[in-house]
């Protein structure tokens, strides 16, 4: 139970002042009229002040405590006792990163009511706090209140949204062959259906799709997804300068959603996935496979906060020992305000990595802040960015310039092309 604080509203102070001023005037002028006015306002003030509710308990119930971005959560608050003459006002503090979808987290309980509920919209990933609850016990006229903090805060874990990837072969440079048995999570992996094509004489009969053949009256065969088991590293830019645009939608959030979606697809295909997040520090997760890796990646992504200004060059130099040789690398960055990008990418390619850069354009997000007006500085930065992308392509990296108007699915498809 927190410390109890007493607060007077402006009205209460006004009434007290009127009463005091009238009393002094009554004495100075020896006027009974002012004395009457003073007594009357003092009586109203004191009467109301003496009637306020007893302490009570408030408990919070949450529908669920772990959700994905975009889902809604219902929160209910229940009050233990509600028999009194005053008023109870309850405020459940909600993290500013959460939106209220329905109802309000602030409510004055009407007589007889035992509680209230509201729904929050988890629009952005993160570990969000709900609570603590503040209980304000008011007098009947809402002149003053005693406020105390009750109940413990709850945590709502919001994972980044995972968009489904298109089935198909990921263009990866090297396939990794592992020695010995490899237990796969899913039976028939590598035998996943991809598409149907015309029969050629070299196709084995068991691949013929008889249903389709019967329907089209020509021989068609099933095409299966190729199996590509490899180690993939993601390097995610979580610097403060990458959080441009709005907090809801910015290059960092785009990269995180992309990383969550693509890593999910890759892990489903039995690849091993590693993750490096740089910003205020460099966090490395070594490549790993399976649902454990999936969870670990989701938690790392959920926990990351855009901050700091470590460059790509510095973070790659730090994490070189963790990069599996020749593994494909995804750099997820807005590529802004970082002079080391060109050399860092060159270095990676020189070590034999296949580098794919997925870059949500930071200046496009910033242009959104200026209502999408084309301003002179934007043109300059755009030219510089285009130069950088051309340069990176010239170095041998695959660059996906991600326009903010396109969603994560578009970016995933671009990768799969």
């Amino acid at each position, binding site marked *: 139970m927190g410390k109890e604080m007493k607060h007077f*509203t402006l009205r209460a102070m006004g009434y007290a002042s009127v009463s005091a001023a009238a009393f002094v005037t009554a004495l100075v002028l020896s006027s009974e009229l002012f004395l009457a006015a003073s007594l009357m306002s003092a009586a109203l003030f004191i009467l109301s002040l003496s009637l306020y509710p007893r302490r009570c308990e408030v408990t919070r119930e949450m529908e669920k405590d772990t959700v994905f971005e975009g889902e809604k959560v219902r929160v209910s608050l229940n009050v233990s006792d509600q028999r009194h003459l005053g008023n109870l006002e309850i405020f459940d503090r909600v993290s500013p990163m959460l939106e209220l979808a329905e109802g309000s987290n602030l409510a004055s309980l009407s007589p007889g009511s035992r509680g209230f509920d509201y729904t929050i919209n988890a629009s952005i990933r993160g570990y969000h706090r709900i609570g603590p609850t503040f209980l304000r016990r008011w007098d009947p006229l809402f002149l003053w209140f005693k406020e105390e903090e009750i109940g413990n805060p709850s945590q709502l874990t919001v994972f980044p949204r995972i968009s489904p990837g298109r089935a198909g072969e990921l263009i990866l440079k090297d396939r990794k062959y592992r020695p010995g048995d490899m237990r796969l999570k899913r039976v028939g992996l590598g035998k996943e259906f991809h598409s149907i094509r015309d029969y050629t004489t070299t196709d084995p009969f068991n691949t013929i799709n008889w249903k389709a053949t019967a329907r089209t009256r020509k021989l068609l065969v099933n095409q299966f997804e190729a199996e590509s088991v490899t180690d993939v590293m993601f390097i995610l830019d979580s610097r403060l300068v990458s959080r441009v645009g709005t907090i809801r939608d910015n290059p960092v959030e785009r990269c995180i959603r992309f990383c969550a979606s693509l890593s999910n697809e890759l892990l489903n295909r039995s690849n091993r996935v590693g993750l490096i997040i740089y910003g205020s520090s460099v966090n490395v997760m070594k490549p790993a496979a399976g649902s454990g890796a999936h969870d670990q990646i989701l938690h790392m992504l959920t926990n990351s906060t855009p901050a700091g200004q470590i460059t790509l060059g510095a973070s790659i130099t730090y994490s070189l020992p963790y990069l599996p040789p020749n593994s494909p690398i995804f750099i997820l960055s807005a590529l802004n305000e970082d002079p080391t990008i060109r050399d860092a990418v060159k270095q990676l390619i020189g070590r034999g990595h296949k580098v794919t850069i997925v870059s949500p354009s930071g200046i496009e997000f910033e242009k959104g802040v200026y209502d999408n007006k084309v301003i002179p500085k934007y043109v300059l930065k755009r030219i510089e960015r285009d130069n950088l992308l051309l340069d990176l392509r010239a170095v041998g990296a695959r660059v996906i310039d991600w326009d903010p108007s396109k969603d994560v699915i578009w970016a995933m498809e671009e990768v799969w092309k």
Partner: protein
Amino acid sequence: MRRIGASTIWKWTFLLMFLLFISTEIYVVTSMEDEGELSSLENGWTGASAFSDELSRRGFDVRSLLTTPSLLHEEEDPGNTLLISLGPQREYSLSELHALRKFHSRGGRILMADDSGNGNGLASRFEVNFVRGQLYDQNFVSSPDLVKFDVNQDFFDGTVLMNRPASLSFSSGQALIASTTSAWVDRNGNGINDNISTNQGEAPGIRYLAVISDPDFTEHGSGAAVFIADPSLFMNGMIELEGNMEFAVSLVEHLLPRGGKVIFDDSVHRSPDASGIVQRSLRGLAFATTDVNLKIVSGAMAVLALLSAAYLYEPPGKPGHDCILNRTGVAELVEPELLEGDLAELRKAVLDRIRVSYGMSVDDFSALSWNELEELVGSPGIYRFLRKGKYRGGVEELLLEVMAWERK
């Protein structure tokens, strides 16, 4: 600045008010003397209860004022009110004198009897003065201290007996009682009429023992004040002697021809018994609520407290959900316009664009001559900007040209 809570302000205001009240109370209680002579509530030989009872019997509304004459400010009907102050044992304060004077100017009547000089504060405001020193006259009874005087007025014709009277000098008003021509005042208190030539003050002559400030007050409809040089005339032990009682009562009837309220000012005496306790406890409150200076002080304090409360007070905020998801941030486009320094950056960007689109390395590109560069650029406007840093028209046009530039 650290904000102070509303309750703190109120606490301090009340504490200050309380201290003011307590200090007033202490001052008033300790400044009182320990004798109850001539109090209307005192039944003993030295009290004045007989006079007070007689007035009640005659139909006057008799009250005892225990706290302070400042309360006379609150008197609703001063024209029919008489304040009697007998032998004050302390001097009146300035604000009390102000209240008495105001009471008089509003039509109030005052009767003061004194031989100690404590009444001079009030008397001097009516240009009357109590002269210190006992008066001796030829018409004494059994002892030179007890002197008889003849009174010949419309309202009373007879004699009164006084015990060790003082005398009065006045420059306005009219005498009600005078001595014989052989009366003298013992100015140095040795009981002997000293050498006349060396001590002029003790020379025999007519002295005055009662003075009225305005003999025609009933016609003027104004207030009146009567000063008598001997309070013992009204004592229980003296009032029944000679024509004292008749004189006293007729004086009161003369001052209040329509009857009315008679207030004995017992605030100048210590009251006996229970009323003494009431007196002590109420005096501070009465003082605080009627004393003009205290009114100003407490009024100013209240105004100051209100002002400081208004200045320091911060109303509690209404809690609400503050969603920050739509807050915006910029990094590269903080300044939307191109500034001088940006032109160098633009020049570098344009050169880079040319180099990258021709697929040249930095070294190869640096080795180019101006003529070769002009050929690669093609556009004379851009070339001029690269070579001389100048451009025609606005910077917007240059930017458009750069945007549209493509490798030949």
